[in-house]
């Protein structure tokens, strides 16, 4: 077993190397991360046999990913904030064309004002694209999730691209011990990709991503909805299979001391580490507080959430804002469960989220005054 002290950006590159994609189209300029840099190293050093395409923009990166995936090979790309916004159009096309692309996104704020620090507005803004979105808490989870993402995306019954989301800076620029798996173990868990559905080939030519008139579009979108919904079961299955092999289990949600909790915090990504620490302290002080970490934001784990929240009061943390409504996660939680719930917008543009902020959120959930509150605003 190999343990490396690396950032989540490097952890993702390690996982991608093990997944052996044939094509890696990236735009390796700001706002990129070390993910593309490390992959370029691997390819240049002959450690990874991939076609590394330096494209001229993120729009082109996703377009090239679509072309390559359409030709039936495994594809990886990575992006962040403005880059993801710039590829918005082909991001929708990739899902609509049911191409099993895996993309890592380092979650960072969107302009304006220009800001390169962490929040989750970028991927949240792509939530309706049809992509599966998995949010990671640690570098270890990012490593594990990339390998699982291919297995989910490439399932012939699913065929939906997966976005692996990691908090920019907090995870991508800090290091942690990450346990790696060997190439043999990776090959066994994730065999080479054999496309079984539509893909471009010379012996059976076809058109992909064609026009669909009003007589067909609705059904095709409905099929995508069914596939995204069906992926819930697969995400759990793949997480369990991975856990049985490597000892780290993942599912749609993670429940932390929420079993008997009177107040449950709901959040995504690296902030959950801080929340867990605060919960431990509050538990010691006799407060029944818990956490539900949403790992799969799309598909939204409605059923699992319903079961886990019981009749607790909910505090939903959002590192994003849907103006005049509150956070996007908050809206999703409210539309899924009937529990009394409050939304907290926090940490936009990389504003530090401290244990004090979390305690304030818990206190405000005990004695609520507003539906939605912004935490950490300066006077």
């Amino acid at each position, binding site marked *: 077993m190999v343990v490396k002290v690396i950032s989540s950006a490097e952890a993702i590159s390690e996982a991608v190397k093990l997944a052996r994609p044939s094509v890696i189209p990236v735009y390796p300029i700001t706002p990129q991360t070390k993910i593309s840099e490390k992959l370029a190293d691997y390819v240049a050093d002959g450690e990874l046999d991939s076609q590394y395409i330096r494209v001229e923009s993120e729009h082109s990166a996703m377009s090239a990913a679509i072309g390559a995936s359409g030709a039936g090979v495994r594809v990886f790309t990575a992006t962040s904030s403005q880059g993801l916004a710039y590829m918005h159009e082909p991001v929708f096309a990739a899902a609509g064309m049911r191409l099993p692309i895996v993309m890592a996104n380092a979650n960072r704020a969107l302009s304006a004002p220009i800001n390169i620090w962490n929040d989750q507005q970028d991927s949240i803004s792509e939530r309706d694209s049809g992509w599966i979105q998995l949010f990671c808490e640690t570098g270890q989870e990012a490593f594990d999730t990339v390998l699982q993402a291919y297995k989910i995306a490439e399932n012939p019954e699913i065929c939906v691209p997966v976005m692996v989301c990691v908090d920019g800076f907090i995870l991508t620029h800090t290091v942690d011990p990450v346990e790696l798996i060997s190439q043999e173990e990776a090959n066994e868990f994730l065999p080479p990709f054999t496309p079984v*559905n539509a893909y471009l080939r010379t012996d059976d030519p076809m058109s992909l*991503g064609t026009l669909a*008139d009003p*007589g067909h579009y609705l059904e*095709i979108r409905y*099929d995508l909805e069914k596939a995204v919904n069906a992926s819930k079961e697969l995400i759990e299955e793949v997480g369990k299979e991975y856990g049985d092999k490597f000892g780290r289990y993942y599912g749609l949600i993670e429940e932390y001391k929420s079993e008997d909790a009177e107040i449950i915090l709901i959040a995504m990504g690296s902030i959950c580490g801080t929340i867990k620490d605060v919960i431990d302290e509050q538990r010691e002080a006799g407060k029944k507080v818990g956490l539900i970490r949403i790992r799969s934001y799309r598909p939204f784990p409605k059923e699992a959430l319903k079961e886990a929240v019981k009749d607790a009061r909910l505090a939903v943390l959002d590192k994003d804002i849907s103006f005049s409504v509150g956070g996007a996660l908050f809206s999703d939680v409210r539309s899924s469960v009937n529990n009394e719930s409050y939304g907290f917008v926090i940490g936009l543009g990389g504003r530090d989220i401290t244990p004090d902020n979390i305690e304030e959120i818990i206190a405000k959930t005990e004695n609520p005054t507003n539906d939605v509150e912004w935490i950490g605003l300066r006077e």
Partner: protein
Amino acid sequence: MKSIGAAVRDPGSTRRNKTGSWRTFKPVADKEKCIGCGLCYLYCPDGCISLEYDPDYDYCKGCGICAEECPVKAITMERE
């Protein structure tokens, strides 16, 4: 129907896009009044009308030009 990837395997699938579904009004001819001048056939922008005035309702979008051009007002536009 199960669709994967909006893929089309056979050429010529444009014909499956039945533009007649766009129609709100349908041209109907009174063949007794028709003098067989062929103006409707000439003016139809979609080539949907035969010389005997048999519109192809699969592709006729109901633009009404045939009714407008008919010199003897043999064509009326009826709501679908």
